[in-house]
């Protein structure tokens, strides 16, 4: 993975010193809360329901084990012994003390980490495919480009005070696992007519209150032009995006109000006028970045059937929690953070330390964070799988439910977040209890449940096969359900099935919905999403609200 050079190191250390001084001035009363807020937000620090919340950047979701151990250390020393992995591949701590945050950032800097621009109206942490570099369908590893964007967007002098937050995602594979179409800018590596690689550029996607699928602004952008083109889009947005209404300030609103044609014209004009002044991606610079992500020294291994003679628990885990690797003899292992009784995405310091040891033993010392709030050991030799499984089970990290209905994604909700209407974590527990039979879960096949505690959509409910949104009705928690969304491949937004349901009925309503799927599917091969797309939401809607008939 990328290693800091002297410039990166000096930069993060100077950032820590700057924030230490800003915190000191705030605590001494020299900065008001209003003055301090944008400064602390740009260092990942929110003031939440109980305490500050610190969001630490995990650029494009990639960690080495030294970093993972540092995250454990921070959880133990400055928090309550755990952290929460978010849907944007970051980690959040819910209980740090404001006065200690500069120390936390200084500790992070020692392992080449930071919390820069994980909040605030600026360019956020760039996200990518959690299978980057190991997926067989990839045209090119997107991570060198992600690292380039990380550096370019870090304290960009012109784009640090945008109208609103700005999210960029990159995928190197045609099967988009980074949901690029629901980002402010989505970049997909594509092959051009001359056989070379470039980018397809999407703009104006996003979830939140106004979910929109991004539109294509460029079918083809040569790779060396990437930063010049990003600067053009950002400059048009920075100058003309709305700033009078926080709910109308994302770039998607500007694209909509100008119209795609006019927006494109402005971006292209800016790009043409600024090309000579914008950063060009030099061949040597990108070659250095590519070298940082060179393939691991894989061995030539046989590929025996790992399930032969194995226990049923291993076979279930192997089938559900591992995926193909592009190198023969290796597998990608998903570490489930969706154990019954735990908040999705939560991990204790002890689990982090133990997983770091396992990653050193079995996966070249690296760990990835997924958009679905799980972790991945991406490079495990097949012959190590049984030992790894045996080690993960007692850690509570081997729940064989990846891709199933209980592999839900979920925002922190009312328990932690001051914006939330609903206790998403409680609903996750309710769903776990309702769907606790693994054989039944496996029979249901792949179903992505995504849940947000409010319309800001941190749980990405719009793109869940089943989406659940917490709404407040006269001080009570209710839940709106959408069907048919998808975050991968061809991104789609779900459709609301009808009135929201009361808190205690959520899991039972899901049970009725999946019942329709089981009746309607054309054999086990037809997934939930395929059935929703084929028959529409009407049959689901009809059954979802038919509580009495089912009970009778």
């Amino acid at each position, binding site marked *: 993975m990328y290693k800091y050079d002297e*410039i990166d190191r*000096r*930069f993060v250390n*100077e*950032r820590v*010193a*700057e924030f230490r001084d*800003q915190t000191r001035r705030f605590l001494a009363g020299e900065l008001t809360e209003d*003055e301090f807020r*944008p*400064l602390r937000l740009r260092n990942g620090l929110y003031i939440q329901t109980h305490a500050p919340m610190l969001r630490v950047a995990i650029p494009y979701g990639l960690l080495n084990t030294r970093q993972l151990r540092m995250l454990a250390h921070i959880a133990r020393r400055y928090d309550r012994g755990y952290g929460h992995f978010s849907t944007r591949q970051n980690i959040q701590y819910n209980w740090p003390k404001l006065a200690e945050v500069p120390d936390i950032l200084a500790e992070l800097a020692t392992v080449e980490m930071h919390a820069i621009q994980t909040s605030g*109206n600026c360019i956020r942490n760039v996200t990518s495919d959690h299978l980057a570099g190991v997926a067989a369908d990839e045209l090119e590893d997107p991570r060198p480009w992600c690292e380039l964007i990380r*550096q*370019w967007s*870090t*304290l*960009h*002098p*012109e*784009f*640090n*005070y*945008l109208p609103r937050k700005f999210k960029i995602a990159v995928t190197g594979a045609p099967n988009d696992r980074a949901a690029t179409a629901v980002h402010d800018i989505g970049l997909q590596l594509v092959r051009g007519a001359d056989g070379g690689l470039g980018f397809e550029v999407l703009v104006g996607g996003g979830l939140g209150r106004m979910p929109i699928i991004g539109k294509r602004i460029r079918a083809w952008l040569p790779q060396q032009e990437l*930063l010049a083109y990003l600067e053009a889009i950002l*400059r048009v947005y*920075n*100058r003309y995006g709305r*700033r009078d209404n926080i709910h109308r300030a994302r770039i998607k609103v500007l694209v909509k109000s100008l119209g795609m044609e006019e927006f494109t014209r402005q971006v292209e004009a800016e790009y043409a*006028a*600024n*090309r*000579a*002044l*914008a*950063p*060009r991606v*030099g061949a040597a*610079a990108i070659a250095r970045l590519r070298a940082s992500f060179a393939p691991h020294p894989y061995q030539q291994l046989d590929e025996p059937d790992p399930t032969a003679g194995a226990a049923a628990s291993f076979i279930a885990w192997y089938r559900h929690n591992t995926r193909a690797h592009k190198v023969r003899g290796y597998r990608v292992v998903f570490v489930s953070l969706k154990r019954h009784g735990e908040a999705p995405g939560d991990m204790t310091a002890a689990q982090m330390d133990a997983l770091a040891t396992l990653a050193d033993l079995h996966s070249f010392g690296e760990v990835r964070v997924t958009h679905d709030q799980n972790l991945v050991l991406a490079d495990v030799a097949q012959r190590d799988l049984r030992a790894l499984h045996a080690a993960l089970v007692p850690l509570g990290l081997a729940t064989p439910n990846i891709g199933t209905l209980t592999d839900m994604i979920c925002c922190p909700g009312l328990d932690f977040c001051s914006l939330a209407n609903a206790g998403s974590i409680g609903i996750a527990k309710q769903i776990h209890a309702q769907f606790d039979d693994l054989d039944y879960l496996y029979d249901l096949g792949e179903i992505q449940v995504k849940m947000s505690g409010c319309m800001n959509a941190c749980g990405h409910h719009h793109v869940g096969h089943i989406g659940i949104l917490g709404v407040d009705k006269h001080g009570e928690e209710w839940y709106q359900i959408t069907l048919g969304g998808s975050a991968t491949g061809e991104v789609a937004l779900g459709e609301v099935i009808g009135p929201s349901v009361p808190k205690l009925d959520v899991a039972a309503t899901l049970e009725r919905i999946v019942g329709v799927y089981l009746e309607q599917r054309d054999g086990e091969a037809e997934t939930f999403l395929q059935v929703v797309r084929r028959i529409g939401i009407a049959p689901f809607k009809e059954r979802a609200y038919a509580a009495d008939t089912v009970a009778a």
Partner: protein
Amino acid sequence: MRQILWQREVRADCWRYPGEAGDGPLVQTLSELLADANRPPGAGTGVWLGPIDEVALLVPQLPQLALIVVNFEASGDGRGYSQGQLLRQRLGYQRELRAAGAIRRDHLFLLARCGFDAFDFAPGEDPRAALAGLDSYSVGYQPASGTLVQPRMRTPG
């Protein structure tokens, strides 16, 4: 008299902003400047830009301008950073470029990177103490109009 930070020195400001009384040379609003077609050429003129003012409209007047004030109406309003970059890089403006309004020491480094060389701070900010903000960082990644740091990334030109 207003104290401003200019090229790392604190100095008293002689200019009169729009609406201010006094003797100094007047800073005109953009619309005043564009309406005043009879201005004698060569006169040192100052202009005041709000966040929505188009910098490209200044092109014909640029050789006569001795001061451009970019007013930041709110500390989170980043339009002025683009105005600074455009004035310096694309339009080649070389004389005083001043950031005024809701600016504090915490904005200095980025403002200077975008080509601002003069700073009229929000009330309560001591320009002398704020000077330290210029040196918050010794490195930067992106090419920009200011020469405060040597950026890692390069332009083709």
